[in-house]
């Protein structure tokens, strides 16, 4: 039987403007975590009932620890940022289906935007062969050091031009005439939508990791759906981001809304 895991906060740090990193420790916690999977974090406040989904950014099997990287956007993430080393935190983990790694690709493109970047770190580590990483930030980058440790070229763009290329990650890819056999991507929906069109034009298969507000996190409540194309039934049906995703093939996602 699975259950909520009680983890211990091993490290909490602010690693950028409104960007926090937390390491959670528990026996066996890092086993079988695939890049792109997420955990559901239960906060201990009476006012807030629902756990918060956060992607796994790194899984360290030796230390039995997971790293989550998050932005403080509301009450839940604010509370999380106040947690201190040694305190305990309950999570459901690992949840969802991670990226499907294509071991045969001769070159992979990894494309991330904003708070979609963290899960790509563990992914970048696990992808074999040649890879290029495109990271788009609104302002000051975070996690760059970690990405630069990987054996891959990392291209950075920022909306405000404070670092790297000034513009969107797609513009940067256009400028570089980026190409590859497969794309792995996570980021805000408008970016994923544009990337999806970009990939379609170039006939490159792309995996995108979607976000939707969640309740159960395990596929039972149907609140976290997205529209996925299918042959019958008006051309699409609702699928669950938590249990059928969060990673989908971009060509199957119905983007027009």
């Amino acid at each position, binding site marked *: *039987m*699975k*259950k*909520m895991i009680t983890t211990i906060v091993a490290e909490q740090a602010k690693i950028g403007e409104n960007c926090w990193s937390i390491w959670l420790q528990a026996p066996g916690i890092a086993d079988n975590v695939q890049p792109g999977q997420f955990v559901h974090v*239960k906060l201990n406040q*009476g*006012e*807030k*009932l*629902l*756990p918060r989904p956060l992607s796994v950014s790194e899984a360290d099997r030796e230390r039995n620890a997971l790293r989550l990287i998050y932005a403080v956007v509301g009450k839940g993430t604010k509370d999380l940022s106040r947690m201190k080393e040694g305190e305990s935190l309950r999570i*459901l983990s690992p949840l969802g289906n991670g990226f499907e790694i294509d071991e045969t690709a001769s070159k992979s493109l990894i494309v991330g935007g904003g708070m979609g970047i963290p899960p790509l770190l563990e992914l970048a580590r696990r992808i074999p062969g040649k890879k290029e990483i495109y990271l788009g930030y609104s302002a000051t980058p975070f996690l760059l050091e970690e990405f630069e440790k990987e054996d891959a070229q990392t291209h950075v763009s920022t909306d405000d031009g404070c670092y790297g290329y000034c513009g969107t990650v797609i513009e940067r890819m256009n400028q570089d005439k980026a190409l590859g056999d497969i794309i792995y991507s996570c980021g805000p929906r408008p970016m994923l939508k544009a990337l999806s069109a970009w990939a379609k034009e170039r006939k490159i298969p792309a995996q995108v990791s979607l976000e*939707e*507000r*969640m*309740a*159960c*996190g*395990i*596929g*039972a*409540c*149907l*609140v*976290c*759906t*997205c529209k996925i194309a299918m042959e019958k*039934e*008006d051309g699409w*049906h*609702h699928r669950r981001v938590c*249990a059928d995703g969060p990673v989908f093939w971009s060509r199957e996602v119905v983007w027009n*809304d």
Partner: protein
Amino acid sequence: MTETVHKRPDLTVEMAGVTFKNPVMTASGTFGSGKEYGEYVDLNQLGAVVVKGVSLTPWKGNPTPRVAETYGGMLNAVGLQNPGVDAFIENDLPFLRQYDTRIIVNVSGKSIEEYCRVVEKLAVTEVDMLELNISCPNIKEGGITFGTDAKMAASVVKEAKKYASQPLMVKLSPNVTDITEIAKAVESEGADAVSLINTLLGMAIDIHHKKPLLGNIMGGLSGPAIKPVALRMVYQVCRTVNIPVVGMGGIISGEDAVEFILAGATGVAVGTANFMNPCATVEVLDGLESYMISQGFSSIEEVQEAMKI
């Protein structure tokens, strides 16, 4: 000093001729068809699994966002997305039948005709009980209209009874002036039990984007925030009808379940609490049993009758 030997209390309950090993059930729509939570909970331990609403044809449900958290509660506007009764019977029912627990199927429809057709299809299956959902606030046609008008409620029950081979429980809406009136109406047409409450119609607004937090504008409020309203209604209905009542609304602990049973409920269902903790159902069950032991209750019926007013 004498030592008190605590006998394990008898948790079985009976409703409409069906025996349940204990009163703890899942609330429809919060537990899927049991498969997902089956990884976290031994379904054999539950009194019943009440599955999500099924309709005659597949329903796509509402646009997202479908959920918004509120103070001590949550709003949902799933809109009864489901693959239809045929797919349910084919794909989900066999899974549930593996377990030694009762199966209650929640039935949705947009017309009396639709309700009847679903009931008819389920009549020939190994389902223990049906729960007629006449109270979903998230779909415009049907659902809510049946649940907020005593005459409509009575007529859908009357027709559905004609096709049902299992006992029929009716799920009541709290969004009414007088819930006892609806309860009496469905009882008089042969409802075998009533369950309550469904969600309270609510709303939340995103002040930064200046629009509702739910794609469907309004949604159903559930969770501990609504427990006092749920408990009041269960208490009122238990004093009005002679059929068994399944109480729900904000139950997150054994103590909460006890409150509903003291108010007169025969069964209790756990909904939103599952999202807070996937093992909530069994924890509620354990808490209920501990309470009974510590207070010397030997049966659920004793608890039901223990209230002093």
